[in-house]
């Protein structure tokens, strides 16, 4: 079994003291090692943001790409070599704003990888601007006075677009977050995990305390995660009750559809792009077809 140490690197993370990303990193290392996944065959794909620095802090393969482009980068990697475990991870601004179009289309494609959003409801790296999930009461550099924008509901978006594994967790609960990661990674197909993450520097609304008072575990509450309508209702719940309660856990899980990397005609025939023998490609048949 891969122990956590093999993922250690010499460098120390440089997040603010008390940042939720420390918990997320600990959960991620625990999840991968507990799943016994080889670090050589793991690719952590991130974007740009505080949280997106995470690939540097665990020793697997990684790609720290562009702001908002985690999903296509991850899809390209997985489709080129489905043997790899691919995990995309990045901020709420990255994935839900800059990368919004990819988030809408990822469930359609249903490539087998996991997407984790570090949802601190703020643009942290750029020092505190409104993000798609910024709550109305959170004053920040780009919403100093008026509450101009509504708050996006990424869990509901993921659900209605056909994501077949949708879960949420709280970064302060490392054990539960690791558990959710393990479930998401084990799911065959595009899986989505929204991690509620306190930001000690730029978000004084959604604090550790705030989350601890509100989060409750869906599984303990008897939620039926195979029921889509129930899942959607749970995703809507905080938006309807003014965020008095915040469900975490697995909202929805459905294993009926095979992932793209199993049904794509090329991959279904066992032809893996990354290991294709290209030493001497014969184009004779292609020229012949054009006769």
């Amino acid at each position, binding site marked *: 079994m891969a122990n956590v140490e093999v993922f250690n*690197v010499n460098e120390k993370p440089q997040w603010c003291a008390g940042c939720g990303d420390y918990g997320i990193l600990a959960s991620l290392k625990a999840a991968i090692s507990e799943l016994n996944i080889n670090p*050589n065959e793991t690719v952590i794909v991130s974007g*740009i943001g505080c949280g997106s*620095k995470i690939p*540097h802090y665990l020793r697997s393969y990684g*790609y*720290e790409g562009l702001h908002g482009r985690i999903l*296509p980068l991850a899809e390209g990697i997985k489709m080129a070599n489905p043997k790899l475990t691919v995990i995309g991870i990045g901020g709420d601004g990255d994935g839900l704003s800059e990368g919004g179009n990819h988030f809408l289309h990822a469930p359609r494609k249903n490539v087998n990888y996991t997407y984790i959003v570090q949802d601190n409801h703020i643009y942290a790296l750029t020092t505190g601007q409104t993000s798609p999930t910024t709550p109305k009461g959170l004053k920040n550099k780009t919403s100093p006075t008026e509450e101009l924008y509504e708050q996006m509901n990424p869990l509901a978006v993921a659900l209605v677009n056909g994501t077949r594994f949708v879960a949420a967790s709280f970064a302060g609960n490392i054990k539960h977050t690791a558990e959710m990661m393990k479930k998401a990674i084990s799911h065959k197909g595009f899986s989505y995990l929204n991690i509620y993450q306190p930001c000690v520097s730029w978000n004084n609304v959604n604090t550790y305390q705030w989350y601890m008072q509100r989060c409750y575990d869906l599984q303990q509450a008897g939620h039926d995660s195979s029921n889509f309508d129930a899942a959607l209702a749970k995703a809507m719940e905080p938006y309807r009750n003014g965020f008095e309660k915040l469900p975490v856990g697995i909202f929805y899980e459905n294993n009926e559809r095979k992932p793209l990397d199993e049904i794509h005609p090329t991959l279904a025939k066992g032809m893996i792009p990354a290991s294709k023998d290209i030493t001497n490609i014969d184009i004779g048949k292609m020229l012949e077809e054009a006769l």
Partner: protein
Amino acid sequence: MELNIKIGAAAGEGAFVMGATAGKIFTRGGYCVFGYPEYPSLIREGHNSYQVIVSDRKILTPTMESDVVIAVNKNTIKFHSESMKKGSILLFDSELDINGTGIREDIVKISLPVNGIIKEQKADPKMKNFTYLGALLAVLGYPLEELNKAIEDQFSRKGKEIVDANLRVANAGYDFVKKNYDAKQEMKPIGKPRPYMTGNEAISIGLLKGGLSFFSAYPMTPATGVLHYLIKNQDRDGVVVMQAEDEISAANMAIGASFAGSRAATGTSGGGFALMTEAVSMAAIAETPIVMFLAQRVGPSTGMPTWTEQGDIFQVLGAGQGEFPRVVLAPGDPKEMIEISADSLNIAEEFQIPVFLLSDKFLSESYYTIDDAEHIKFKLNRGKMAKGSLPELKPGERYKRYAITDDGVSPRTVPGIPNGQHVASSYEHYEDSFSTELFDMRVAQVDKRARKIAKILERSYEPKVYSFKGDDAVVVWGSQLGPALKAAENGKFDVIHFTWLYPLSKEKVMKAFSNYKAIYFAENNSTGVFEKLVKMELGIEPKASIRKYNGRPLLPQQMENAVAEIRKNGKSVVIRNEEHDDFEFYSPWRY
């Protein structure tokens, strides 16, 4: 021997099917054929035309004057009869009223009862394409069996009934002409069948030859043909082809696939490429090899989507923030389309850089005959890709993916290889890929990447000189090779063709240029973008330039005339209007 057949019809009325089938018939008979479609950005209405130039020698260009015109609609006669040769043949639907079309006396008119034949043979009106083609073969004195074979190939999957009906209407067209018209021409097959395909198909085959195993794109004319071709047989050819949700995704996916170890490319036109530019810059700093195919069309912005232009060199050179090495390629004939597309994947991996493969509507959507397939050369080179096992990493250590090396290229590993762990990063980084903002390392990494350029210049292709014993030469790049070669035959000037546009080796360029009294640049754009680049990079200026930017390629006759004018008065020439066809006629907005 050279024959120009022009087919005209309303959009969706079969001009392309007829043109492509005619092209196939003659290439099967051993001829070289160049097929040139023109169409507005519409699915119905609008006017389509397809020129089939048949020759017993290599032909890579449309010409201006036709020997036979097939008119499915009246507009064809209006638009294309002026450019018919003296005594040439017009084959037209007998129900068309040709009064008022301006058709000349000297033209032989064959009025074909197409609808009558369809009714008589109880066939589907769509099959009338083959009535025209049957009639065409009768006019040319070409064996009808060749058309019959083409019909069988095309329709055998749809059943005997459909095949038979098509054969009947084709034969009836053929017989009608034989009976009512005294065909003087005798044309016969002259050799072995040769492949006939679009530029986009040749480029696709080239990419496959080069080991492509991943392609992602978002549809955009005139690049889409590559997506269509590659996806059709992806599971036979061992390629994963993805239609992405947008070009940003297409570019990032391809880069991801390349990082994972496959040979990957993406393709688009200028508008889509604009969206890919951030990814270009990422591939550059992360040193992930990537090939980006860019089929240019008329800009700015949506411009004229289905027409041709060579205007995007600076878009490609300026794509992506920051400074980094890149290579820009532009093939000009079918062999080059295959070889250079294949080689682009080598270059990307040898130097771990973005490589741009440029074509345009003219090159991408014209049909070419492959008459030299046996000479196609390619040798795989994956550069410094890790093979076998790597030395064990110490605890906490990463692989030095960005090791400072003499030639600027660092050894590369891909996920799955033990002890190769690193983070490909859009940030500046240490040798082991961890992010850094330290001055020394920043400078060392910039210098490392820049050191690649010396080797890239060594690797660059020489401009190719085609001699016609001229003491002056016309410089063209990419797609304009074909028209230039044809123009040079009569014009007696040499042609210098660039397929490697950037970076430029002064030595190699001077070697080509220094033999001439005068050099002229001929480009399919309004400002001479390549001329500008050569001046900027090498300080070389031509004596004069020839430019055309009305959406059509430079035609041989025009180039020949322009050179004659320059020789006379030394002044640059802008080709503003076609001598015959009026571009306005194609305009969807002016009907």
